[in-house]
Structures are given as C-alpha cells and as structure tokens.
C-alpha cells in the first residue's frame, strides 16, 4: 500500500517512513504543502498522513484537496496543535482519523489497520489462540462453545492490541498509552498493566493456560502466533 507522509519535521518524517516501510508500506515524503499538493494531484495513495502545522500550507486545505482528488484515500491528521476545533473541523472535512502528537508508531499502525478493515468490510476478524477464538470485530472471546464473559473491556483492549501487533514485544508504556490514552492524569509510571495481565491470565486459566500470552522479562508482553 502507498503512503504519502506530509510532515515538515524531517526527523519525524524519517522515522515514520522507516517504520511504515518495515511494515510493508511504500512511502513517499513531502516536507511542505506545495509539493504535497502536486503529488496528491498526480498520484494515488491508500493513506495520506497530514501534519496540520505545515510552514507553507494549511493542512486542512491539503486535506480538502486530497479528498477531492481521491475520495478513496484514507487521510490521517497528525498534529501538535491538539486544539479541539481542529479536530472537529478535520473530521468534518473527511479525515479518517486523527492522532495528536506525540503518538506511538504502533498506535498509528493500529489506526491504519482499522481503517483498512473498515474499507474492505472485513466482517469477522477471528483469531485463534490455543483453544480460544478471539473475535476482534464483535470484541468477544470464546473457548470452544463457551463465551469467556469475565474479560472486561480494558482487558479485551489489551489482548486486541497485542494481537494486532502479534509476535512483537509491547512495552508497558506502549500498552498504557493505548488503553489509557484518553485519560489525562499525572501518574508517570503505572504498573497497572501487570495487574491487568495477571487478571487476564487468571480468567483464561479457568479454561486453558494461555501460553500464547508471553511475558518478555524486563520488557513487556507478547502474543505469539
């Protein structure tokens, strides 16, 4: 899939490119709005990542152009200007998602995956883990015919995020950011991820030991598929 990265901060654009290339995306970078506008006019992209704070261009204008040229292109707005009205305006103008800086690359990847799933209308995203079947669309876990209902919303979020980034070790800060991203509080180091994992294991153990949920010593957790 093709991605156009419109980001004037070269270092950040570089990291985005590196990460997305590593995840099998084809990337192009524009450091300003003018060249981005030209590229949007001539090429087709699956994803356009737009930084709102461009030096020469209003990011929202660029969004409008992108949507006019190719309504199929999924636009994700990246901005440090986390003002609320920008957010509303951006989504009104057809942005598919919005990520306030600073964001985790993994979060970006999961948003892109969600958009892809939406686009291609994937009905049931079923993942089998040992004897468990995890339905990422309905957000349910079943063991054989029995539904594992004890799993809470937060716990499911954790499992789903680990599945999305399967075979990769996710650190506690990455997991925290994902499941508590909308909460603004002043704790800087929480060990609650461990408590959540402990609860998940306890609840799943009733049926079968979830060996696929690994603790990576000193680093975090991983689901191996």
């Amino acid at each position, binding site marked *: 899939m093709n991605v156009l990265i419109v980001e004037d901060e070269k270092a950040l654009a570089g990291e985005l490119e590196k*990460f997305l290339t590593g995840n099998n995306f084809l990337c192009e970078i524009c450091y300003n709005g003018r060249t981005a506008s030209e590229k949007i006019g001539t090429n087709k992209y699956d994803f356009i990542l737009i930084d709102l704070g461009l030096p020469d261009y209003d990011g929202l204008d660029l969004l409008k152009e992108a949507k006019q040229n190719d309504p199929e292109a999924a636009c994700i707005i990246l901005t440090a200007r986390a003002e609320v*009205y920008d957010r509303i305006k951006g989504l009104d103008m057809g942005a598919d998602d919005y990520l306030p800086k600073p964001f985790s690359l993994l979060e970006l990847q999961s948003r892109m995956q969600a958009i892809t799933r939406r686009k291609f209308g994937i009905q049931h995203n079923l993942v089998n883990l040992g004897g468990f079947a995890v339905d990422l669309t309905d957000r349910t876990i079943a063991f054989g015919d029995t539904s594992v209902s004890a799993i809470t919303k937060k716990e499911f979020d954790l499992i789903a995020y680990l599945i999305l980034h399967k075979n990769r070790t996710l*650190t506690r800060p990455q997991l925290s950011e994902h499941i508590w991203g*909308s909460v603004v509080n002043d704790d800087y180091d929480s060990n609650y991820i461990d408590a959540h994992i402990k609860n998940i294991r306890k609840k799943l153990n009733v049926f079968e030991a979830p060996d696929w949920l690994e603790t990576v010593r000193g680093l975090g957790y991983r689901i191996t598929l």
Partner: protein
Amino acid sequence: MKLQTKLTLFNTVSKLVIVLLFVALLPTLIKTINLSFTDSRLKREREKVLEDIQKKGIEEYMPNGQAYGSYTPLKEDYVSLDTASDSYFLDTIRRERRLVEGDTISYRILSYTFSVGKKDYLLEIGKSVKTIDETTGPLQNIALEVLLGMMLLTILSDLFYSNYILRPLGLIIKTKLVERKFPQFGEYKKVETSTSDFERLDVSIHEMIGDIERAFLKEREFISNASHELMTPVSILQSKIENMFDEDVTDEVKIRLLEMQRILNRLKTITKTLLLISQIENEQFLKEDSIGVSELLQDVYEEISIRLQEKNISFEAVVSDQVRFTAVNKFLLFNLFFNLVNNAIKYNKEDGNISITGREVKDGYMISVADSGIGIGAEQLPHIFNRFKKFRQSMEQDSFGLGLPIVRSIAEFHKIRIDIRSEENVGTTFDLTFPAEMITV
C-alpha cells in the same frame, strides 16, 4: 459598616448634639436678652420721667411733697417717686420682690436718686419679671420642635446627596471588585462619575486589573506555546525509540530503550497535562454533551477499577439513575472524576474505601467524593490545587501534583463549585456542586 451609613450616622449625631446644646442654653440666652432689653427700657423710661420732671417741675408728680406711685391695672409695671435722705446715692437695676396690695410680685426694679433744688428724691421704675419667665418654657419647646424638624430635613438632604455622590463608589465596588472573579477577561465598563477621586480610583483599578489580566494571559500563552513546542521533539524521540526496538539490538539495549521510553513518557505526561489545562483555560472545549451521572461514574469505575483492586479499596457510588448532566464536556467531566477518584486512591490506606454520593441541594446538584485516606492538614488545604505542589511527601507516589489542578480547571470551566472537608487520618471529602442549569432529572 458602609461609608454612607457612617457619614449619615455621624451627621445625625453631631446635629442632634448641637440642637440639644442650643435648646439647653436657650433659657439662659432668653433671660439675658430679655434682661438687657428690659433694662434698656427701664432706662429709657427713667429718662422720660426725669425729662418730664425737668419740664413740668417735681410738683407735677409730688404735689405737697407727697410720694407718687402709679401701677398698670395688672401691676406689671409701676413707677414710684419719693423723697430720699441725702445719705445715700443709688443708680441700680435689681430684681426685687414688692408687696403690692397684698400680692408679692417679683420685679425688675430700676432705682435712681436725684436732686431737685435742695431735696433728694428716689425714683423707682419696676417691671414684672413673671411675664419674662413665662415665655421661656414655650419658647424652648418651639425652638426644639423647629430645630428638630430642620435637622430632619438636612439629614434627609444629606442622605440623598451622599447617596448620589457615593453611587459611583458603590458601583466600582460592586462591578469591579465584588462581582469580579480574578482573572476574568472581558469588557471593562467605565463608571460614570464627576468626582475626580472616584474617577482616579476607577482608572487605577482598570489599570491594575489590566496588568493582572496581561500577566495571566502571558502565563497561559507561555504554557500553551511551550507545551505545543515540546510535542514535536517528544514525538520524534518516541518514534526513534520505537523504531530502535525493531533493529537488531541486544536485550540489554532493549531494556535501556524501555527505560528511555519510561522517562520520555514522564515528559509526555507533564506536557500533555499542562497542554490540557491550558486548553481548558483558553476555553477550547465545547460544552455540548449530555450524560447520565451514574453512567459517567460507571465509566470512571471501569477505567480505574484496577487501581482500586491493587490497594483493595472498596468503591460505591450512590447516585440517582435519572440525573443527567447537560451542556457539559463528557471527556473533561470524565477526567475530573477520574482524577478525583485517582487522588482518593493514591492517598487512601490499604483496604480503605471510597464512596460517591449524589443529592439535590438548594443551588443545584451535589456529588461528594469521600475517601478514608490520610487526610489533608488544614494548613495545606489552601494550596492543594496549586500546580506541581506535592503534599504528603511521606507517601510513596509517582506523580507530579497535577491531578488536582486538572480537577480545578475542569470544575471552573463548568462552573462547578468545589468544597473540601478533611480530617487527618480520617479522610477527605470533595463536595462538587453542579449548577442547577447543568442538571436534568
């Protein structure tokens, strides 16, 4: 006491004292005036009699040397003429009693000796003082009534005038000081006054509030800019660290990367929190949501239950299912309660409890968040909403002291009043009063 009350009170008392003093002095005054008046009349009459005698001769009054005496019918005045021995000489005016036809009457008597030919005569002219004394009482009463009436009139006019002249001051106090919440940004209306002192006061207050507002705006702008500017470098670092995990690095390096990630997270949290507070203060949030109170508290509970579990703290929320908040920002209210409950957990004891209760009160709806924690000392209470202020340092904690500032900013944005009750080692209760217009039942 208000300035106007003080002025009126002083005016009344001082005037009353002067009036009473005057009325008390009145008899003496009247007597003195009357006396000098009577005395000069007596003297004039003496001159007339003497003139008459000179013209017509003493025989006219004293034919054959007989003493002369004449009274008015009611014996108010009398004139007497008699021979006098040459051994004494008189020219006096005195008050004396005289027996006249069986009545003893007090007179003001002029006595005067003079000689005609070889003989000495004594002239007496008397005026009854009874009439003089009788007028003093009524005069005093009339004076008192008239003066009191006049005093009342002046007090009333003083009151009206002072009311008129002090109105700008009242307006300045009411609109600029009492009803003003610092810092409040908005139109500044000049108070109309012709009194230069008040004008100066008003202008000075204008200027001072202007300075305060500018300082506040500057601080807000700075925090807003600083946190914005920090976002991009933090973002770059975060991406760089995340990408490094994917490179071919040893586990030891990965652990160090995780440490860096943690530290970066700290920076991120501070910046995000400051940015949130500055966005709230700059009113960049909309208040268009509606949410049930119990639903909101349930959301908070779900989000925070893992923390309750860690300390084995029991949690109960007793609120009516019918009560809803309207015209609020759901995201912000969620964060308000999250931070309050998080605070209640942080400063709670193991196996403690947190209870949230809602009830209707006179001016809206009150939600109390009570914990069984270590409490806050009275001397610390005024400072708990200050940014980066961490109290209760003895507790092991991983935060910067921005939780309660978030709570306060959100509460102020929604005009929610916060009252705190706390007792050390017993617990703390935050009473949030939501304005009535924010509540639907």
